């Protein structure tokens, strides 16, 4: 089967027991099974996430006092690597992994579109990520002094962006073309819809980052780094992906996860579904930030459009907040950890968007020091991590076939809430130091608090990983097809874990909650 082939949509008897396969390097490296590919993404991204938050904590720790344990250049490279790494090695692949696993199940497909390409994308991303980390560690980060290492870093980043884009194309194509009969776009489950919106925004913005990297690399390699490749400005050219409004693009799939988790664990249909879809769509449109590159367009943040986008982002966020809050009112919330993590993600998203709105108000002068924007970045990435942790806890039984230890998840609710709030808000408070002189004296204390917050977020990643693994351990309570007993969407109609081909014959879908229709 060629890379461009799609496996035929053949139905499989879901009740059939899959023959036991002895794992071999061939089955691991050669698999085109979307479940395996998605799981690899999630596991690797969580490991990178732990390392990334630790690196962020260390680079923040460097800001404290005068006797630093890191050299200035090392701390700067560590900070920049973690800044980009938390997006491209952690958040995007976490959502992409969940998307590769869950979207085909939610839309009733037997596989992801272009399964071999999806697998190739995952391995390319993993390999490039490894090269990126290694090259960054040998003084090859942005502005590093080893020229060949810097080239390697740039090429690895380029490779991993291409891989993520290829993986995104596979998931988007699945959501667009492989939906089961009756599943119109407005009936697509919220996570799949948010992957569709988020993936489309990634597809329209990450290539611009690739363009930036290409220019930096060509200049660095052939021109001696005199313009784009100059060490001091290399990172500035790619910083826009960690800055408002682009940072919101990495939160979009999280909104879908939150909506799905809340709908299932409150047992209520999402009443204002069209409003939620509209809110996710508007959130996507307002997060297109590839045009606002401070290195190319220095006055971007003084642009009225930039400021309007930052302020308007509050509208879809509040709309979404209201829509899911109604589910709490209409249903009976079940106090399971994914629900807690979804609420944490929602709160952190709201805080990040509020911070973004404040950042857009020029008279506040919050863009002067950079601390406020850094705080907003931490809030946003923590919100995305909490959403991913909610998704892992929620779909974990489907992925592993066993229920994970809910205690770990509940502990993670506190850890991620504490980590996100401490890590992000303390830097936001520090952002006001140019207006309140008393805050300058609290610089070290606030940075230490933020550093502790980042360490907690690393712990949150570890707890999410342990939670997923605990579902796969021997003796874990076996998960039914509908692991929560209140599933609404098609992924809960196939066995846990799903067999090859995922489904048998599916009935025509007649509403966004086909499993609830079946019960009637």
């Amino acid at each position, binding site marked *: 089967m060629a890379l461009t082939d*799609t496996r035929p949509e053949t139905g499989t008897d879901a009740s059939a027991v899959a023959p036991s396969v002895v794992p071999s390097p061939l089955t691991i490296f050669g698999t085109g099974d979307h479940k395996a590919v998605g799981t690899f993404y999630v596991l690797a991204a969580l490991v990178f996430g732990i390392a990334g938050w630790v690196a962020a904590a260390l680079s923040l720790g460097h800001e404290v006092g005068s006797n630093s344990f890191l050299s200035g250049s090392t701390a700067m490279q560590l900070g920049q690597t973690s800044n980009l790494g938390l997006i491209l090695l952690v958040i995007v692949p976490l959502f992409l992994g969940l998307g590769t696993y869950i979207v085909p199940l939610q839309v009733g497909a037997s596989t992801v579109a272009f399964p071999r390409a999806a697998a190739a994308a995952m391995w390319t991303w993993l390999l490039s990520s490894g090269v990126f980390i290694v090259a960054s560690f040998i003084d090859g980060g942005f502005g590093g002094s080893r020229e060949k290492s810097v080239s390697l870093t740039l090429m690895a980043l380029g490779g991993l962006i291409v891989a993520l884009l290829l993986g995104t194309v596979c998931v988007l194509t699945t959501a667009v073309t492989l939906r089961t009969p009756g599943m119109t776009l407005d009936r697509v489950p919220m996570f799949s819809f948010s992957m569709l919106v988020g993936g489309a925004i990634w*597809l329209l913005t990450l*290539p611009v*980052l690739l363009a930036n990297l*290409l*220019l930096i690399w060509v200049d660095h390699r*052939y021109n001696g780094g005199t*313009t784009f490749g100059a060490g001091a400005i290399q990172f500035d050219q790619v910083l826009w992906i960690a800055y408002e409004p682009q940072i919101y693009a990495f939160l979009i799939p999280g909104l879908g996860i939150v909506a799905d988790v809340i709908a299932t664990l409150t047992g209520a249909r999402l009443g204002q579904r069209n409003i939620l879809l509209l809110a996710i769509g508007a959130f996507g449109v307002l997060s297109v930030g590839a045009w606002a590159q401070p290195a190319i*367009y220095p006055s971007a943040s003084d642009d009225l459009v930039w400021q309007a986008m930052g302020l308007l982002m509050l509208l879809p966020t509040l709309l979404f907040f209201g829509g899911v809050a109604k589910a709490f009112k209409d249903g009976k919330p079940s106090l399971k950890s994914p629900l807690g993590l979804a609420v944490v993600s929602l709160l952190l998203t709201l805080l990040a968007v509020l911070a973004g709105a404040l950042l857009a108000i020029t008279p506040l002068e919050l863009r002067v020091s950079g601390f406020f924007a850094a705080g907003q970045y931490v809030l946003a990435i923590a919100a995305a991590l909490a959403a991913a942790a909610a998704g892992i806890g929620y779909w974990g039984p489907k992925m592993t076939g066993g229920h994970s230890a809910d205690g770990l998840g509940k502990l993670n609710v506190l850890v991620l809430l504490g980590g996100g709030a401490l890590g992000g808000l303390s830097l936001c408070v520090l952002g006001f130091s140019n207006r309140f002189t008393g805050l300058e004296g609290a610089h070290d204390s606030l940075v230490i608090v933020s550093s502790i917050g980042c360490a907690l977020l690393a712990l949150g990643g570890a707890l999410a990983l342990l939670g997923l693994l605990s579902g796969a351990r021997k003796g874990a309570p076996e998960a039914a097809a509908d692991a929560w007993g209140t599933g609404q969407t098609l992924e809960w109609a196939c066995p846990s874990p799903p067999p090859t081909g995922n489904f048998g014959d599916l009935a025509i879908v007649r509403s966004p909650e086909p499993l609830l229709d079946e019960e009637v």
Partner: protein
Amino acid sequence: MTAHVLPPAPAVQRPRVLVVGAAFAAAASFTVFIGLIGIYLAARVDVVGSGTAWLPEGATIPLQQPNTMFITLIMSVFTMQWAVAAIAKNDRVNSYLAMGLTLMLGIATIVMTTYLWYLMELDIASGIQGVLIYTITGAHIVMLVLAMIFVALMGLRALGGQFTARQHDGITAAAVFWYAMVAVYALIWISIYVTK
């Protein structure tokens, strides 16, 4: 004796997976160039705004070769569409011929681009202009080569009998990516070669 004529087969309801996937890939590729050309235009406005000429002294961009390339690529759009139309009528011979011609026109464009690089006398190390122009035109050649590989691969699959009048998504998908590549060249032609 009465002849029993069977009713025509119903239209196949098939997801156009490869066409949609190629369209997404084409959109992503197009966006790379939107980014590159945006940066190019911003840099040019800065340099020209400071009162100096955009191209360094001694460098020149003749228009004859870019125009020839543009005409060549426009012709390739027709040959590619010819390939799609031919396979849609099960006319395999014409489809092979059209795909072969498309590849030839692609090779001609590569040759012409390299000749233009030679004529420009623009050193990549001459500054921001060299880096931008060679990155953009070089990236376009990479996209052209990818599009040619896509067409060639689909041509080989057609030779293997995989495509029919009812199922020729592979060739349509290659055509979608090819058209995106030509659209990118149109952007380059107007922003780099014509308005300099």
